[in-house]
Every structure is written in structure tokens, then in C-alpha cells.
């Protein structure tokens, strides 16, 4: 299990943070996503054996956001 922090672009309001966090439901390998609109960041805790970073970023892009390693 690893914990990575990302800078997220495209969040316009606190609801977006909730939207970003919902990738938890999209990918089974993600344990927890904690996003902050105020900081423009998200912290993802995931199982590298089940899901890759590329898959996480792709899931996020599907929802209209772009993430970069912080």
C-alpha cells in the first residue's frame, strides 16, 4: 500500500473535491482518496499490485480533472 500526493487542476468549488474523491468507487485498488479544493491537492492511498498510477490519473481525467505528482 502506498500513499501519493498530487496537485489537481480543474477544481472550481468544494463539490469538485467530492467529485475527485469519487474515483475511490471507480477503481477497486484505491483504499482512500482525500482531496482538498482549498489546497488544490489530493492524497491517494492505493495498492500498487491492484492499480497503477496511470490508471488513477486516467480515471481522474475521465471526470474532467488533471493531476500531477506534487
Amino acid at each position, binding site marked *: 500500500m502506498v500513499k501519493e500526493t498530487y496537485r489537481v487542476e480543474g477544481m472550481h*468549488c468544494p463539490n*469538485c*473535491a*467530492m*467529485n475527485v474523491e469519487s474515483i475511490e468507487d471507480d477503481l477497486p485498488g484505491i483504499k482512500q482518496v*482525500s482531496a482538498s479544493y*482549498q489546497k*488544490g491537492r489530493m492524497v491517494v492511498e492505493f495498492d500498487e499490485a491492484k492499480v497503477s498510477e496511470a490508471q488513477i490519473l486516467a480515471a481522474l481525467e*475521465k471526470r474532467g480533472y488533471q493531476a500531477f505528482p506534487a
Partner: protein
Amino acid sequence: MNQLIVAFITGLTTGGLSCLAVQGGLLASSLEQQLEHQLDLQIEQEIAARRAHRSGKKRDRILAHPRLALPILLFLAAKLTAYTVLGFLLGALGSVLQLNTVTRAILLIAVGIFMVGNALRMFNVHPIFRYFAIEPPKFITRYIRRTAKNEESFFAPLFLGALTVFIPCGVTQAMMAVAVGTGRALQGAALMFAFILGTSPVFFVVAYLAMQLGARLEKWFMRFVAVVLLVLGLLSVNSGLTLIGSPLSVTNMVQAAKAAQPDLASAPVPLSDGVTLYLSAGNSGYSPRVLHARADTPITLNVVTNRTYSCSRAFVIPALGEEKLLPESGTETISLPAQTAGTVMRFSCSMGMYTGEIIFDQ
């Protein structure tokens, strides 16, 4: 029962507009978050549609119909609940709970800064303004996400609706005083419920029409909301400054610039002689706006009302800490201690919307 009907009608007529002027900013703040959310959903759909187009699939209808009635209803429901609880407490305690002038001024200024900060956030002036957005605690967002799969945001309108309890308009304060007077918890709660229920249709209609129009204009409307928020925020700060009698408030600066104003209020009052002053508190403000009093002499101020139902009934002299709820019709006599020549004593309604001053001359 009669009292409840009167409270409902008062809310429906004067209360709705008066409260909208004071609390409209909070409603705009909650709807602004909802509109932003709708906009994000739309962007997501556009991305999906573009992908579908690239892969040769039939393009789905893009625009989601914005659900704006729900956040407005949630805001109003939270407001109704909060005020009903307040009515219950006021009725039970029978007194005390009224906020004093300074506390209310600080709240108005704080709410104003909150609105201005949010407007600047929406204009993307600087990321620091993101801290003005209300970010609900994680356990709540998680709960909302898990239970409400439709991804509507309930927190902001509910929270902000309940917050209106801290910035009641003059008419609401008058009703709060009546709730205190009932001396019974359930009656106080019923009274506030009837009154706030009465104010709700005006709130809903104005907000819904404004937002329906806005959803079609998309991003431009977000800027419009930001401008409205900015103006309401500055007005709120100004009302707060007026309330504490600050000469820095725009109202007081304008007042100082144009000394004598034509009479606005309806009730005719006797002429003041410098020692006994007469002031009319009408539905559209105080008249005359500038009174002249003799310096170094105790003064008697008679504030006259004649079928006055507006904010001006909640009469405040910040410098003296004087606060009176005037009768709908009648005369309230206030004794002013002797003041030195050149003193300017400001008075206003309790929300700082209507103002005037007493100048002490040689």
C-alpha cells in the same frame, strides 16, 4: 391563531423582501456552489461525448438540466428549521437571546468579508481566496457521496440556510421580540415558523427565476453571481460599519456630504426646538435625516411611528448603546445626555439600512 396568521402575512409582504436584502448573499453563495457543480458535470459530459464521437458512437445529448429548485428549497428548509428552533428558545427563555448592536455589526462585517472573498475566488484572483469556500468535513462529504449517488450538493445550502439565523433583518427581529413576548416555547416556535414560511415564497421565486436564466448563460452568469456577491458583500460590510456608527461607512459619508435631505417618512412630526427633538420613523426611513440639538443640555428625543412596519422600527443609537423596538404606531421617548458642541450622534435601524444623525450645535 390570529397571531400566527398575522405573522405569516407579515412575512409574505414586508418580511420576504426585507430579509432578501439582508440574507440574499448567503442564498447566492449556496447557489453559486451548486451552479459551479452543474458546470463541472457539463464539462464531464462534454468530455465523454467527445470520446464517444471519436470512437464513432452516437453523440448523446450533452446538457444536463440544472436542478436549481432543490438547493433553494434546502436553503429555505434549513432556514425555516433554524428559525423555528430559535423561536422555541426565545419563547422558552422569554428574554436575553437578542444579539446586541456590536455583535450584530461584527457578524455583518464578517459575512460581508466572506461574500467578497468568495467573489474574488470566483474571479480566480488568487488561490488564497479558495479558503473562503466552505469545505464540509470529510466524513460529511463521504456520507453524502455514499448515500446520495446523484451527486447533488446538500451541505452548502443547508449550512448557509441555517446561518441566516445570525443575520436577521429588522422585520425578523421585530418578530423575534414578539416570540420572546409569548413566553412559551411552542408558541414562540410556531410564530417564527409562520413568519419564515411567509417569507419563503418571495425568496424562492426571486432566486429561482434568477438562477434559471443564469444556467443558460453558463459561465457568464457565474461572473454575474460573483459581481452580485461582491456588491452584497460590500453592502453588508457597509451596514456593519454604519451599525457601529463608523464615519467610514459609505452611508455616513454620503450623509455628511449632503447635510439636509428632503423628508422621506410619512408621519408628520412637530418641529424640534433644539431641546425636544421629534423624529419620524417611517416605512422608508427616518425624517428628518439630520436633527440639530443644543449642546451641553440634556435632550429629549421623541421617535414617532405611524403604521410603520419596516426595519426602521428597530431603532439604534450606537454611541449610547441605545436600542429600542418602536411600536407600530406611537411615540418612544429617549433621553440623550448632554453633548459637547460639534458632536455628531448617528442613529440607524438595527441592520444599518436606514440612517440619520443628530448634530449638537452651540
